[in-house]
């Protein structure tokens, strides 16, 4: 009687609650805490009543921290202490710039490679070697040559998100059906018009797939890069809270990284839906 969607939603909620319950049980400390400690020593150790306070946090601790952070997301206490909202904005800003640069480079070059089998064969080895390089491997080189840490972070996003787009664009352009191109040739369509009215729409779904993969990579990269370079951003937030060994805040950071990544993916999924066509 209920729709599939409603039943799936209900199941999701139940799974989430079960997960939280298990989590809570797992982190609840046992009753005995060993022999009683000298009260002065206990104070220096930060032990108040039972058990140490910096153990793994439970779901309620995390929810509390999350609420604390969401209550005032945009506070700014100087360069080392900013609200979670501000940190996310820094990260998203970096991703946006690096990703936009990657789109500007990858799509035209991908187009060229896709149209010319010669260029494809010639450039393929380079792409295959550069594609699997981890973002963090680029970081020291970028810091050394660019000599600016925020530009380096943007460069690393660029260099890591450019390849999937490039390959997918080339593949999409190369795979446009010969019949359509032949029809265009018969009708004496000029090369520019052919590119924009025949090839681009035909390859668009594949190009968008590449862009979707890339945005996921860009978001993965920025968190790692910010942990390494520090300063600002959600990656720095996680690093800073790790220093503080505040695992609850680290989990909050991880949660938000996941949510933002999902939103970015959804936005591109929407675009992809728009350009997809039935054959």
């Amino acid at each position, binding site marked *: 009687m209920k729709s599939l969607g409603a039943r799936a939603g209900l199941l999701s909620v139940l799974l989430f609650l079960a997960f939280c319950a298990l989590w809570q049980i797992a982190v609840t400390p046992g009753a005995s805490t060993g022999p009683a400690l*000298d009260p002065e020593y206990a*104070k*220096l150790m930060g032990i108040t009543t039972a058990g140490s306070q910096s153990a793994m946090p439970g779901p309620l601790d995390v929810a509390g921290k999350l609420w604390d952070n969401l209550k005032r997301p945009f506070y700014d206490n*100087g360069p*080392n202490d900013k609200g979670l909202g501000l940190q996310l904005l820094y990260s998203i800003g970096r991703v946006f710039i690096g990703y936009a640069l990657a789109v500007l480079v990858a799509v035209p070059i991908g187009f060229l490679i896709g149209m010319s089998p010669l260029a494809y064969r010639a450039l393929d080895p380079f792409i295959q070697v550069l594609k699997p390089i981890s973002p963090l491997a680029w970081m020291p080189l970028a810091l050394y040559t660019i*000599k600016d840490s925020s530009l380096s972070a943007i460069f690393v996003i660029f260099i890591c998100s450019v390849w999937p787009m490039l390959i997918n664009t080339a593949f999409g352009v190369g795979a446009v059906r010969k019949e359509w191109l032949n029809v265009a040739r018969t009708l004496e369509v000029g090369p520019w018009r052919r590119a924009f009215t025949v090839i681009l729409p035909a390859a668009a779904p594949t190009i968008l797939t590449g862009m979707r993969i890339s945005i996921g990579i860009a978001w993965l990269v920025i968190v790692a890069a910010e942990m390494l*370079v*520090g300063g600002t951003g959600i990656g720095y937030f996680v690093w800073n809270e*790790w220093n503080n060994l505040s695992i609850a805040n680290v989990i909050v950071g991880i949660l938000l990284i996941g949510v933002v990544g999902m939103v970015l993916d959804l936005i591109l999924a929407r675009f992809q839906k728009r350009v997809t066509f039935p054959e």
Partner: protein
Amino acid sequence: MSMFSNPFSLKSTLRRCLCGRHASAEEHAAAERAAKLSDEERYKEVVASGLMRALFPNDLKRRAFLKAVGTSTAAAALATFFPLDMATEAFAQTGKPEKTDLKVGFIPITCATPIIMAHPMGFYKKHGLNVEVVKTAGWAVVRDKTINKEYDAAHMLAPMPLAISQGLGSNPIPFVAAAIENINGQSFTLGIKHKDKMDVKSWKGMKLAIPYDFSMHNYLLRYLLAENGIDPDTDVQLRVVPPPEMVANLRAENIDGFLAPDNVAQRAVFDGVGFIHSLSKTMWDGHPCCSFAASREFISTMPNTYAALLRAIVDATGYASKAENRKAIAEAIAPAAYLNAPPIVLEQVLVGKYADGLGNIKDDPKRVDFDPFPWDSFAVWMLTQMKRWGQIKGDVDYTKVANEVFLATDAAKVMKEMGLTPPATTSKSFSVMGKVFDPGKPAEYVASFAIKRS
């Protein structure tokens, strides 16, 4: 260099000088002379010169005046209606900083206490600077950001300016250690499961962490191991781990122990994952640890800014060296913007009454101390260890490098200004684990060790 030319001289010509850097041969000579003068005399001349030029902006008229009354009369006349001495003093004190908005990088550890506390406690502001202190993820990043000029100056490990100047781990760039941040303040910390391994000889096969290759930690830990017959390169594994990440690594049993700043060690105790085996001061009481470093270029292009910054740091270091201020400092540097640590942990480090992780309370007020003086002999010792462990290949002029990098004279001057008492010499002897170090014989010292690489 025109500020240093002598306004009382009649012999100035308007032609260029031999070296070409000065407007005239007269200025060239004046610059040479100024280099030989003491600071005070030089300040006096600069002020008098400025005044003379202000009174007689026209060169010919000034000369006519000097010719008429004579140089000494002119100077005396000037002094009667203008308090030359006071003006000189004011100039020496408050040379206007060329740039007041500065960025100083730091690693979140208690060694950086003077650099950090100078911000919340207003020491930078007091010396006319608007300094942003920026937390940084690791030593290599501090190095790169300072070389890149993202930071004007930075908290560095004391051997780092020596390493950077010699091009170890980077391009050779002249760097200086303007002041020592802290002395002592490090602990040998082991994981709680190694409770029974109090004897260093039983550390064979362990994985131990140090913050950076060019660090006192590396040299002290290697020294300790070698003295106990353990070769640090073959019998144990030394890993570079940024200090803030050491506790998490110890908890995960990635490492068996570390030599790290006291707040990291105390945090391991606080979290119940480790215990403090011994303090680094038991090896060498008063050893340097971190430094306040800047590039030579910063100092020469912005001397007044550098002077103000150094004054702020020395001032803060002097304040931190007093035991009665330590509790307030612990609270000032605990927030998220600075060390991001529980105040009780920092208090145990700075005040010196601490839990050792084995159930004992120890009391050592000198656990960490603050003394800004960059002894040349500290630098020489670090260089001997760089040589000993093969970081420096070939010959090294210990004294020359030490003099160039450790600015003991500058620090002494600033300390005097601040009402502190700098040592009369720039070099001192000390002993490490009972072995006396003579800074005059570094090569012999290196040769005297049984375990070494070169």
